[in-house]
């Protein structure tokens, strides 16, 4: 019984990379291309800027992947990002200050997520339509908080988060560590279990409903934090800025191999997917693609990222 402590954990972690090699290679290729086209990204400032642009997308992709792993999905990611941004931009320069703003934003995200989760879990309604209805409600609230772009985030806070230093990258590392810790809790593993085999998980003693609510709440938290970062990055709030993020978050997660029916995929894959989407934009710029080609190339890369590994593995099997 000489099981080295932690060796099980390491093996488990290693097997989670299965099936992601193709995506990792594609992302690596894009990053190499980016570096060779624009060596400046290797400077501290360049690196900081690139990760700042990636960070909000990474957060929302994680938020979406979290739900999809649990067998849900959210169509209110975009409006919730906006809500986070406008709350930050309206409170942080007021009496609550930055800490108060952060707390308020976080509580909002957890609360909104928990409400959605409760509706989905207790009334057994499909998440896709609950969050679709929710997107109108959340978007409406964002418009009430700030009817048009404005508000202010203190400059020092903006500089701290989205200035010359790779704070965004460090925050991302922090979030990843947080995810790792969460995934090492019974609830975290229960999240997978409830997504893949809800009945089995229930019979094994996992509180499926509670896990679902937790998943929605955490997803809401990640989403509003993306909004908070966007507010810091832009120094202000915009009640509709998040709109495109809903589809982007789904694209990132699915590119990363996260399945729709729950329990399939990994967070590392989702992160790689979001990095692919973010890096693609810069690479296409430096290659001088005109807009038409940008659209076409984007579509092709997305399809290829999913199809090529699949075709290769089929080739191997045959």
């Amino acid at each position, binding site marked *: 019984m000489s099981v080295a402590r932690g060796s099980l954990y390491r093996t488990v972690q290693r097997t989670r990379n299965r099936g992601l090699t193709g995506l990792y290679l594609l992302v690596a290729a894009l990053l190499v291309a980016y570096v060779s086209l624009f060596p400046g990204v290797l400077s501290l400032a360049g690196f900081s800027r690139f990760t700042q642009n990636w960070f909000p997308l990474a957060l929302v992709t994680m938020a979406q992947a979290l739900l999809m792993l649990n067998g849900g999905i959210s*169509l209110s990611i975009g409006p919730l990002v906006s809500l986070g941004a406008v709350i930050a931009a309206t409170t942080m320069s007021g009496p609550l200050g930055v800490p108060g703003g952060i707390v308020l934003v976080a509580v909002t995200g957890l609360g909104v997520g928990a409400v959605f989760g409760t509706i989905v879990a207790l009334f057994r309604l499909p998440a896709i*339509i609950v969050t679709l209805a929710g*997107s109108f409600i959340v978007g409406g609230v964002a418009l009430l908080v700030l009817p048009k772009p404005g508000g202010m985030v203190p400059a020092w806070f903006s500089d701290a988060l989205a200035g010359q230093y790779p704070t965004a990258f460090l925050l991302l590392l922090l979030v990843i560590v947080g995810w790792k810790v969460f995934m090492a809790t019974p609830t975290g593993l229960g999240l997978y279990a409830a997504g893949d085999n809800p009945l089995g998980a229930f019979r094994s003693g996992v509180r499926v409903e509670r896990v679902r609510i937790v998943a929605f709440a955490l997803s809401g938290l990640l989403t509003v934090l993306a909004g908070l970062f966007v507010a810091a990055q832009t120094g202000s709030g915009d009640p509709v800025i998040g709109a495109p993020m809903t589809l982007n978050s789904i694209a990132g997660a699915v590119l990363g191999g996260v399945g*729709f029916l729950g329990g399939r995929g990994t967070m590392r894959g989702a992160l790689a997917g979001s990095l692919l989407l973010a890096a693609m934009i810069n690479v296409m710029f430096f290659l001088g693609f005109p807009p*038409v*080609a940008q659209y*076409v190339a984007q579509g092709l890369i997305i399809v290829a990222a999913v199809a090529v590994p699949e075709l290769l593995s089929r080739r191997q099997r045959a």
Partner: protein
Amino acid sequence: MNRSLVTRVAAHPWVLTLVLVALVWIVAGFTLRGFGSWGHLRYLLELSAVIGIVAAGQTLVVIAGGIDLSVGAVMTVSAILLPLLSPADDPTGLAGIGATLAIATGIGILNGAGAAYLRVPPIIMTLAMATFLQGLLIIVAGGSAVSVSNPAVIWLGSARPLGLPAGVILWILVSAATLYALHRTPFGARLMAIGANPIASRLSGLAVDRASVRLYSASGFLAGVAGILLLGMNRQGYAGIGDPYLLSSIAAVVLGGTSILGGRGTYAGTVPGAILLVTSTALITVVNASPGWRSIMFGSLILALLLVSGREARR
């Protein structure tokens, strides 16, 4: 008796959606000025027709376990291409319609082929397709587009044979065909089986890949039809004209009681689902409130309808 009614409704959730529509119409008709007039209801039906027709394709796709995120883009492309593809010397205008529908169907075939043979998850395949189509629009939009002069399309958008808008009649035809295909043909039975259990379906000898190509081509075709109808109603296609119909089509399907996971559902629910959506939008429009509040009201209304109709049975 009472109980059998309840179980019947539970077995056919679409009945509930229908009842909801009726209730909303009756209540609104008595309380809101102008709502209950025949002209208004006819107009609501006309608007619902567009959603209903795209949602017909979406229903088929969702029942078979997929999803089509390119329908909005296909509608836009059809509405913009039709005037370009209509030869000026064709007095019927049917040639242009045929060409446009062929392209829309072709897009669907590509979606289906990608999903079936490249094994790209439908959501990604159709999302990528929507991106492609945006690229196509940049080339086409704002080019030499001319106002729609295609007589068939104009007729479709404005004529009222038998007192019903032509679009509604088209919708009735599409509905009949969809319901027939879904419930009366081997194809429909296979779709449901594929949606519920693709592995078992394949091992039972169903041509899953071929079905998926047909399915997405049907969805593309119907999105094309909806795009043309929308063009006829607006007389003008523009970039983004189809965008609102993507989420509407999915919402109509789900409100109609079709399981978003596939394998179970009927177009008979999507029809009242589409009407419900249009009605909600119309109700919200006449309320004088700030945009934020309107949005909140619309979302809450959908959520309330959803709670009332309480779908996805307990395990």
